[in-house]
């Protein structure tokens, strides 16, 4: 009896154990880049190499194949330690891949893999993504640099919040289309965020430049720390600590009309004129409101013409309609009338007048 028990325990130890992934014996794939070249998808894995003097070196592995995530298998043949993708932080899609082939297959594999987190950052690059990921930015590795770049711009600047979870949410939502930030490589040591790309069925169909990102963010996200500059004749004013909120209102059904009300609260940060009087503040507010309304309306009309809906009008109207018919909405979207109403309040103007 006792022998049986000891045998069983021994067998549990020997047969029940699982494969280890010891942290210093694996290559952590922290960044990935996908390009579409010569009819094949070329994947590049970015791996940080931790040197003994606490610096980080970037190493990339590339391979092409027809299947999207298959390249990992090919790349294992080039890497001395097994590649694991549990630490994936940022994924870049080349422009051509995003426009022509679409990124849907790749997104599917990210969803299916249980080791990939939901806060993964996705971005589209101008030009080849392999070139972008092959730089040497920052001292802690490219992937950390890129993900930090995207994150702090989303938290406090003009890029609307988006990551894998939000992308999938928007993509699978019937009344909305997803969007991702665009990254441009400036030189070997610098990158910058150069706008937003809008997707339809996984293909990029539209992009907006950085100066329009502010207005787009007002429409879809809440600001907490944005900045904006506005001109009043010959004076210029800069406001910051912008907090914004938006609310949609269904005005009428036939014809379909939606009203978006944007509330902005800000602090006046810089003024090139002489003195800031309450009248001047009111003028600045009014000018801001005008600008916001005009630009936002332009944006929504532009989305309508390209048949994409990143603002989510479809989703909004569905929440107010019983037995919403999505296929009818596909046709109706182009007849939707939108109106933008902005309400700007400048609460403080700093410590001087």
């Amino acid at each position, binding site marked *: 009896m006792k022998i049986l028990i000891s045998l069983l325990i021994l*067998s*549990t130890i020997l047969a029940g154990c*699982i*494969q280890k992934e010891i942290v210093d014996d694996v290559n952590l794939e922290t960044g990935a880049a996908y390009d579409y070249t010569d009819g094949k998808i070329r994947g590049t894995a970015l791996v940080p190499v931790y040197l003994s003097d606490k610096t980080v070196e970037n190493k990339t592995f590339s391979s092409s194949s027809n299947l999207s995530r298959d390249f990992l298998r090919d790349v294992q043949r080039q890497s001395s330690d097994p590649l694991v993708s549990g630490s994936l932080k940022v994924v870049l899609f080349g422009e051509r891949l995003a426009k022509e082939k679409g990124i849907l297959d790749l997104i599917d594999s990210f969803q299916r893999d*249980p080791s990939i987190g939901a806060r993964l950052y996705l971005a589209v690059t101008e030009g080849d993504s392999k070139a972008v990921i092959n730089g040497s930015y920052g001292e802690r590795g490219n992937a950390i640099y890129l993900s930090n770049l995207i994150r702090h711009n989303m938290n406090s600047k003009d890029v609307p919040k988006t990551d894998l*979870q939000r992308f999938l*949410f*928007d993509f699978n939502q*019937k009344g909305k289309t997803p969007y991702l930030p665009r990254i441009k490589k400036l030189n070997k040591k610098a990158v910058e965020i150069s706008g937003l790309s809008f997707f339809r069925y996984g293909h990029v169909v539209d992009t907006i430049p950085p100066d329009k990102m502010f207005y787009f963010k007002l429409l879809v996200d809440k600001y907490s720390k944005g900045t904006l500059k506005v001109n009043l004749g010959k004076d210029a004013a800069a406001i910051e600590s912008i907090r914004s909120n938006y609310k949609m209102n269904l005005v009428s059904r036939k014809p379909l009309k939606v009203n978006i009300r944007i509330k902005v609260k800000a602090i006046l940060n810089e003024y090139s004129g002489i003195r800031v009087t309450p009248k001047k503040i009111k003028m600045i507010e009014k000018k801001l409101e005008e600008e916001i309304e005009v630009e936002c309306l332009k944006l929504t009309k532009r989305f309508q013409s390209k048949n994409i809906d990143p603002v989510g009008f479809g989703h909004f109207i569905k929440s*107010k309609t019983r037995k919403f018919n999505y296929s009818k909405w596909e046709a109706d979207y182009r007849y939707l009338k939108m109106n933008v109403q902005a309400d700007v309040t400048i609460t403080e103007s700093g410590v001087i007048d």
Partner: protein
Amino acid sequence: MEPLIPEKAKISPFLVFFLVHTMQFGIGILGFQRLIALTAGYDAWISVIIAGLSIHVILWMMYRILDTVNGDIMSANSYVFGKKVGRLITLPYVLYFLCVALTTLRTFIEVVQVWMFQDMSTFWYAFAFCVLAIYIIFGGFRIVTGIAFFGVVLPSYLIFTFFFTFPYADLRNLLPVFDHSIKDLVKAAYQMSLTYLGYEVLLFFYPFIKDPQKSKKWAHFGVFFTTILYTAITIITFSYFSEGQLQKNIWATLTIWKVVEMPFVERFEYIGIANWNIVILPNLCIALWCGSRILKRAVHLKQKYGVLLLTTIVLITINFFKTREQINTLISYTGKISFFLNYVYIPLLFILVLIVKKVKK
């Protein structure tokens, strides 16, 4: 006729809350959202509430039955059908609890195999788990209740991890409310009730409660608490995922945990799954305990041997469920049997007990 349970083996009525709640809260919570959303869309949270409230009715009937016969379900069956037939009718419950134990263990190991350790062997982990379950059950019903108590109290902090979804939540997903027909809602409620099952164990440990009258409110409170928890998680899930996204995710709750990020730990779902171990351990133990108790009462097999026998059967059969479809089949069969036992047999027994009681007067 009824074997007397010694006072020191009985539990206080307050602990019935934990027993009932933990049996309902098991492996179902990890992936029930997809099924109910399939039938009733994002109005399914109403079905969750409906299903939860219907349990109180069944629970009330159960208490009436058990009060009348002052024993467990075998006493009730014997009361209505006579000793021999009563025993025979109670025996299928052993098979049912075997299925429950098997389902719980296999689905949990499946979750671990998909999410954490792809190459973990089913048998050896199940073996270690069963050894633990045997160790617990051999300590007596008080120890089983103790594990149920800790199985509720210790993982309760997991509720707070759901707060991480709030930045991503879009409550407009739930609007407009009541966009589906009553028929759809009822169908979804039926599916939900399969996840809610577990409170029938009350039928088996009723003699072990000190002062059973006092435990009524605790049992109802346990079921109510489960209902509230499930509803909250449903609403959180629905606001976190869009409809198409939810349909793709087999284990929605685990996918939600992917977004939890704390300064000292980057990916929370591994901790969550490891803690889930503590949540389902009481489920397994109570199921095995109930099964072996029936064996003891019906065929007079010593409970120690009964537990060993049932565990061996579980360990042998667990190897036969290898693919997702097989496991799904197992789950749906167990669910159907369970539904029949609770929503059809219990009301029937209730009426019969009342009739026999009047006749015996």
